């Protein structure tokens, strides 16, 4: 069942993003930012961990999860070392995502040229 939920959740989020892109002036940059903020908000109200439990990789592989991990990192930082922990902890859990993005971006830039 988790496979089906995973497919449905990630597919639904991508569908909404596509509808936004097709019908507004927003660019992919805007949409990913909006999704990140939504992810942080869902983590704040405690909903996102439940979604991850039911949908598995369908919930962890999309950009909303990045917002949720930002919130998680900042919150555990706050608990450990107070206000300064928000700043030091913000990227602690999402550092793998950021490093991977930069690394693969550089790799693709080195290997391939943009075509039309």
């Amino acid at each position, binding site marked *: 069942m988790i496979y089906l939920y995973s497919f449905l959740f990630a597919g639904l989020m991508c569908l909404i993003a596509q509808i936004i892109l097709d019908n507004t*002036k927003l660019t992919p940059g805007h949409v990913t930012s909006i999704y990140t903020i939504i992810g942080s908000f869902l983590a704040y109200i405690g909903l996102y961990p439940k979604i991850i439990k039911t949908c598995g990789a369908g919930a962890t592989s999309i950009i909303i999860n990045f917002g949720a991990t930002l919130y998680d990192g900042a919150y555990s930082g706050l608990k450990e070392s107070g206000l300064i922990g928000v700043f030091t902890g913000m990227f602690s859990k999402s550092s793998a995502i950021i490093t991977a993005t930069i690394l693969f971006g550089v790799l693709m830039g080195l290997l391939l040229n943009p*075509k*039309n």
Partner: protein
Amino acid sequence: MASRKLKNIYLHHHYAIAGLTENNHVLKNVLYLKDYYCGMRSIEECEIRMNEIVLNKLISDHTKLVIGGNLDNQLTSLSYALANRNLGYLGIYTACATFVEGIIIGANMASNEDIIVITSSHNLVSERQFKYPIEYGSPVKLSATFTTTGCVGAILNKEPSKLKVESYTIGNVIDYNIKDVSNMGAVMAPSAYETIKKHLKELKRDISYYDLVLTGDLGKYGLNILKDMFKEDNTNTDNLYDAGSMLYPNDQKKAGGSGPVCLPLILFNKILCKKKYRRILIVGTGSLHSKVLVDQKHSIPSISHAVSLEVLK
């Protein structure tokens, strides 16, 4: 006065390069590129290379001046192509009206020596310049025109040939408060309308005087807007065509071609090959925006210049 009749100004042979998307049996006698790089390291270098190839074909001992421009920052692709060539150079910019502006300036300076009027555009370069770099993957709207890749140069002087530059009209900058970068046809149609009206009024002609009125790069939707504007003053628009909307006839996803190279490509490599029309009015339409000002929510001004050509027998 912004309109003027000319005596003894002629356009001679030309040379044209087009990209691979334009290789769809519309154009004749064009050198097509095989990719967006033509053997160079970057897209900008490719555009410089295109300018160099065209210049090498056109420059002779009689050449004294090159007038031209393109859509790059600081007109780099032409400036770099002209380095150390011992030729006078006037760089001009009115976006997609550049070629027509080049003919107007050249016609006022013409002598028995050759003046080369040249323009180029590159799809990926102008996507980066005016919208988003292609790597960003921003979706394209159906009303958006597709910047043509290519480079066209032509020789202008006073020696008689079969193509006479008969008169011209310099346009005004028009701003109808349109802010949509994806709808350049709507931005430029009003300026094309104003310039054609001005040309006909100042030279006391009717639109039926011309066998063909060819606008630059309005695209399908822009051409419809222009036709509607003429319909309101009961002007017949049967002879009104748009170069941009002729360029990709089988591609429903593109509203048409755009870029300064669009008009000369269609004029030299399609219209004049047919030998069907005698009096032709070409109207270069340019949108004069920058990405910075569009991001600051400013509207987009536009300009059109018209040149009347006569095909002699």
